[in-house]
């Protein structure tokens, strides 16, 4: 199989397989949570918790206070760098938007590619910092499992291969593109079975925590 044929496969059949596994896998994951549910709170509530739930959904993206932030500076800064960089690259790079448009029939304006490039570099550097932190910080190293490193690699590869493809570095362009798309498909397939799923479930977690606290009159 030459690179052209392989590119054709990963863009077609390969992508379909990955998207189907991702979609159904995540649906199952979410159902597993929702089916367990939560019993109604019989205590006299201070509020119905909905406002607090919505607040926590948003506010948990920000550290609660300066002291807590200072104590986890590396994680906070590199965490922001990675997530912001990643989201910009996924959703604001012109070729990605074209892909969404071809799949869903609508798109949105892109930002200039050199700017996206900068965000990609920020995301890549942040991921390297986070890996270093995972390997050296006593707590994070203690908590880490093989899955954590697998998920790190699954996040790093699409960014790196995309970056190399854009800059036409190292391998012929078509091979880089194949590698890039395959690595994304690999990540999509891993998504429902690993902690990558947090990208969706964290909203449920934040919602529950906010509501439970809000019912008691506590803002979290």
């Amino acid at each position, binding site marked *: 199989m030459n690179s052209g044929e392989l590119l054709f496969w990963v863009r077609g059949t390969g992508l379909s397989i990955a998207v189907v596994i991702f979609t159904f896998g995540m649906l199952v994951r979410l159902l597993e949570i929702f089916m*367990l549910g939560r*019993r109604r709170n019989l*205590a006299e509530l201070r509020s119905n918790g909905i406002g607090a739930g919505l607040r926590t959904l948003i506010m948990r993206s920000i550290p609660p206070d300066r002291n*807590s932030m200072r104590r986890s500076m590396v994680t906070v800064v590199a965490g922001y760098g990675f997530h912001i960089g990643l989201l910009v690259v996924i959703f604001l790079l012109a070729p990605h938007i074209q892909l969404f448009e071809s799949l869903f029939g609508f798109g949105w304006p892109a930002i200039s590619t050199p700017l996206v490039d900068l965000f990609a570099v920020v995301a890549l550097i942040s991921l390297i910092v986070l890996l270093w932190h995972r390997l050296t910080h006593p707590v994070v190293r203690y908590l880490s499992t093989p899955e954590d490193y697998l998920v790190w690699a699954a996040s790093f590869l699409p960014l790196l291969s995309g970056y190399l493809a854009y800059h036409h570095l190292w391998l012929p362009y078509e091979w880089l593109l194949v590698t890039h798309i395959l690595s994304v498909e690999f990540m999509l397939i891993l998504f429902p079975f690993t902690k990558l799923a947090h990208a969706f*479930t964290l909203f449920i*977690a934040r919602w529950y925590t906010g509501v*439970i606290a809000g019912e*008691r009159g*506590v803002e979290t």
Partner: protein
Amino acid sequence: MSKATLERGVAILKEQINGPVAAYFSSCVHCGICAEACLFYTETGDPAYTPINKLEPMRRLWEQEYTLFGRLKKAIGLSQPVTDSELGEWSERVYDTCSLCGRCSMVCPVGNDISYMIRRIREGLAAAGHAPEGLVAASTRSVEIGSPMGLRLPALQAQARHIKESTGLDIPFDQEGAEYLVLLSSMEVINFPEYLQAIARIFKQAGKRWTLSSEAFEATNSGIQIGVSDIARELATRVVVAAEKLKVKTVISPECGHAYTAIRWEGPNLMGRRFPFKVQHILEVLDELRAAGLFKTEGMEDTRLTFHDPCQLVRKGGVIDQPRNLLNMVASDFVEMDDHGTMNWCCGAGGGVSAIEEAAGIKMKAFDRKKAQLEGLNVDTLVTACANCRIQLEEGLEENEMEIPVVGLTELLADHLVEDDSHD
């Protein structure tokens, strides 16, 4: 209680897993930020005390029982079942080194309420027979005698007589139709009798009818600390039966943190029904009386003082502004600690830790956090609103040779009461 076995522990633990727990385990990315919010980690540097790690057996059980992928792994023998020795090993992490303070739940970036899960994993450990002896003993005394410290009614009656003799104030028992049913913690009765006297004086001035119950005066609930819902329900039921019998409008939880959580938030859910009366913390009641102009004070404390928020009141109870409103009535130099309110650091002995003998050393180590908080503040007095915090604070200050008196807020307020006889 049925016989403690691993099977029973696992079965109970399985029942504890609900939607929030599943969402939390699904979302944890092992970032380690919760460790930095936990004084048992920050003061020891031991990564095993990372809050989310305290839940590892429960996480695996969730994965094996409630996820498709986990069930597949279990079916082909790829997963590690929860063992008795593992639960035994986890006992120290779940009980001795967690005060259920809930600070980790405030900082988790994915929004996990970790202490909510610790409360639940304790149910499994207790059912498997891995609760610490001290907590088992306290729970047994609570069920059999009516108080975790073994305090009986005659001791309270003697204290009431003593107050009557020294102040002339009546301590009412079993008064049907009183507005308030006052609960106490054994620790208050034994160590801080000033509290009861303060209550009597304040209610007299406010012109409110209140009562104690000879059948249920104990507010603390070892059941929710050890994590045995059957015991927690039994203890809460005693209070509810007494309150209904006396037809009170409001049950007042004393200067104690977990007692409030027990009766205010867990009580109705343990019993499976709503209560026909209100439950308030004493600080809520006093703040309401203040707002209604029924609670008047005179004179100000001119010493520099700060307030230690009991965790269960701020992070689990929503009683945050009331102590500040009240302190400002009587203190001209009230300063806040660097982290206060919902971000306050625990005293180190809540959630049952103070009842665990083996935790005596680590709870003092954990106190170092409070010590560091106090050091920069230069206060003359430390005020709090929980008898358990108070004992730990006094012990910790003593141990560290820091001469800062610890005072209960209710007593401090009563010291400034405008005494008039208009309600006699």
